[in-house]
Every structure is written in structure tokens, then in C-alpha cells.
């Protein structure tokens, strides 16, 4: 049976990893801090995937970001998806060459669909994750691009329908309202979009503890849950959460202790 996935998302900006709350960034620490507090090589054994996003509000420096990815993925044997500011084939190639297994695109879904199509052609649908940020307003779901700064003139449902025609591999759906709150995922939005999303769907925004992850993993519409909360899962928080979720009988992967 296809397992559901638990994904950890790192929000990077100009040398530092960040806690994001409703898209306001709070710098937490650099790669050294992350290694110390998360012991990434060990934590990775509790994760299905890692997503790393360059959320810099300045001009995004692809070389710096790629360099960080290269260091981060050493001895991490899980899929890594990277993105933030990809605006050319070269940007994508740099990230793949630096150890990314997939790339994540957000603004380009709207601004440069031709780039998306070319990326799909070169790297295959399964290498391309489409990220969408949305916010609820008066009963409607509005879509934002450019790190949540620019509101599009169409609602989430229409946008998803359009994005899916680009033949990408997955959707990473992030609630800006829930982002960083720790109040739990936005389950409500799924009712609106579950029929539209014919691709694997990752939801992000709001996970504060393992109960939130577990509640969302139970939903049919969801393929994966993502958390970017650096504070709530610090230390051995993630391995503990995974163990609890596994023991509850949830449909997630299980790995051998016996390599050597």
C-alpha cells in the first residue's frame, strides 16, 4: 500500500533558517545551529522527505542557496525538494546538481508556465512540485505569489485547475493563515479542492504537534503532511512524533534497523 508521508520544511533566508508565522520570518539560526539542534543526519531517519525553501525577501541568491543545500544533504538518504526564486532552466539545474531530487516552484506557475513546461519536459513531472500559498477571505480562498506579497485575481479552485494542466508532479498547498501558528492544518479547504486535485497533495501550514500530523494523515485527499515548525519539533521531537504515529497504526513507512 502506498504510504503517506511526513515532510519537514526548512525556510531559508540569507544564511539563516527561519520560523515563519503568517509569512513573517523570524531568523532562528544558521546551518551550524540546525546541525546542533536537529542533528540532521539523525533526524532525517524520522522523515520521508525534506523540503528546503529560499524565502529571502531580498533578491534570492541561487548560488548561496545551492551551496547550503549541498552541505545540508550530505549523508541524508531521503528525497530533498528545493525551491524559491527559480526563474530559469539554469536555476533548476544548479539545484539538481547541488543534491536536490525535486524542485519546488511557486510564482513561476503563474508568471512563467512555459518554464514549467520545459522543466517538466527535461526532468519529468515527478521532479516538479508546484507550491501554492493561499489565504481565506470572506469565504473564498485567495492565491498569493511572490512570498505572499502579491494577490492573484483568481480563486484557489480556478488556480489549481490551471496549474494541474502544466503536468507537474505534486502540489504543496500552504495556508498562510495557519502558517507557523501551531493550531493544526486547514482541513476545511480540502472539501473545496479535493475533487480538483488529481495529483499527490502535500498540505502545509499549522502543524504544532503529532496529533495535528496524525489527524491530517487520516484524510483521503492528502498524500503528505509538511511542517516547518522549528520550535515544536526540536531535539528528538520528530523521531518521537513519528514513533507515536507509527504505533497508532497510521499508514506510514517503516525502515529496517539492520543495514550493517
Amino acid at each position, binding site marked *: 500500500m502506498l504510504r503517506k508521508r511526513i515532510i519537514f520544511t526548512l525556510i531559508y533566508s540569507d544564511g539563516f533558517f527561519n520560523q515563519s508565522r503568517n509569512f513573517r520570518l523570524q531568523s532562528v539560526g544558521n546551518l551550524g545551529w540546525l546541525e546542533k539542534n536537529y542533528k540532521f543526519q539523525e533526524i532525517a531517519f524520522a522523515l520521508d522527505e525534506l523540503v528546503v525553501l529560499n524565502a529571502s525577501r531580498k533578491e534570492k541568491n541561487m548560488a548561496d542557496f545551492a551551496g547550503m543545500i549541498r552541505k545540508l544533504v550530505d549523508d*541524508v538518504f531521503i528525497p530533498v525538494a528545493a525551491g524559491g526564486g527559480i526563474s530559469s532552466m539554469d536555476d533548476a539545474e544548479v539545484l539538481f546538481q547541488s543534491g536536490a531530487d525535486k524542485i519546488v516552484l511557486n510564482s513561476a506557475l503563474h508568471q512563467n508556465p512555459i518554464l514549467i513546461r520545459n522543466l517538466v*519536459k527535461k526532468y519529468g513531472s*515527478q521532479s516538479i512540485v508546484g507550491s501554492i500559498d493561499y489565504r481565506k477571505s470572506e469565504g473564498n480562498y485567495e492565491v498569493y505569489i511572490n512570498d505572499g506579497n502579491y494577490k492573484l485575481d483568481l480563486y484557489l479552485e480556478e488556480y489549481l485547475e490551471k496549474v494541474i494542466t502544466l503536468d507537474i508532479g*505534486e502540489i504543496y498547498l500552504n495556508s498562510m493563515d495557519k502558517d507557523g501558528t501551531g493550531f493544526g492544518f486547514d482541513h476545511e479547504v480540502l472539501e473545496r479542492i479535493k475533487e480538483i486535485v488529481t495529483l499527490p497533495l502535500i498540505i502545509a501550514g499549522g502543524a504544532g504537534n503529532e496529533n495535528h500530523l496524525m489527524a491530517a494523515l487520516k484524510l483521503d485527499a492528502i498524500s503528505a503532511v509538511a511542517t516547518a515548525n522549528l520550535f515544536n519539533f526540536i531535539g528528538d521531537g520528530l523521531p518521537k512524533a513519528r514513533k507515536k504515529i507509527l504505533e497508532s497504526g497510521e499508514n506510514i513507512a517503516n525502515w529496517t534497523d539492520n543495514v550493517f
Partner: protein
Amino acid sequence: MKIVIVDYGMGNINSIVGALKYVGAKEISVSSDFNQLKKADKIILPGVGSFGKAMEQITLKSLDAYLKELVLEQHVPILGICLGMQLLGVSSTEDGSNYGLGFINGNITKFDNLKVKVPHVGFNQVVANRDSLLYEGLPDISDFYFTHSYRMTTHENINQSICHYQDQFVASFEMGHIAGTQFHPELSQTNGLKLLKNFIEKL
């Protein structure tokens, strides 16, 4: 022991190199040069991207001829990973219709997006063929990481291990020294590391 990862310009090879090192491989090179390939004790054929484009690159670099000589005539063990495994098969319907290397009898077709979500992404359970050395030390059913829209099926016994998505498909095969995995062992945590270790030591 020298392992050569065939480089034909497609996909992220870093994680394969990292995983091989982790399980003890000392000498690893990434190359499309026949002189390098000739020295290989084991060959890995990786691959991400589309079948047609990959075969085009392989033919362009004469890798089809090199691989035939080394694998079919000199019996150098080979492991195809993901698209690399599919390329070892007979044909694929991706990008129209394309012939593969034809080392084993398997055909590649697309999942039906009316029946399942495509691509097939994530860890899925593989029922190990107990005649396959790749799975030594692993349980009868183990989780491996898949990410693909096309899959191999076959009517023949190619010593396959099976995964279920839409229908049964070939998760891996092992015909003597010719093996392939549809999943990514290098992205499959300890299960994948164990399998790579088995490839290095047992095939």
C-alpha cells in the same frame, strides 16, 4: 572494487554516490567514458527524466554499445535505478514509442490517472522475491521510495519483486548479474542502504 555510475547528463547522482559511500564503497566514479566503464566491477545506471530523451543521450554517447559489451558479454553486474531500470527493458510508450536496451523482457507503460493519482510518489510496500539477493536481510515486505509515472510490467519470470499501485508492477528484478529497481534505494532510508550494500557485496 570499483563502481561506475553511468553519466548521461540526467538526474541527481549525488545521493547515489553518498549512499554507496555510506555502505562502504571505496572507489566510485561517475562517467560516460568507455575507458572508465571498462574498469568497473559494478555498474549503476541511474536516471531521472523521460525515456526518449534518455535513450537519445545514451545512443549519442554510444553507451548502448558499451553497456551491451560490458554487461551482456563480459557479465559485469549492473543495477538500473528508476528510469535506469526502465531503460534495461524492451520498450516504453513514453515520448511516443521508444526502444530500450532490451537486456530484460519488460515493457513500460503509463499509470492510468483515471484510476490512481499520477505520479506514484512516496514509500510503497515491496513484496520481496526471496530468490533475489538484493533483499537479503530485509523482511518479506519492505517500504521503498518511488516517484514515477511509468512502470514496467512483464509476462515473464525476471525474478521480479512486486509493488501494487493500480495493478501489480515490477518494483525490481534480478536476472543473475542484471538487476534494476523502480524505486530509489538511495532515497529509501535504511531499507535502500541495505539493498545497495547487497548489490555491492552479493551480485
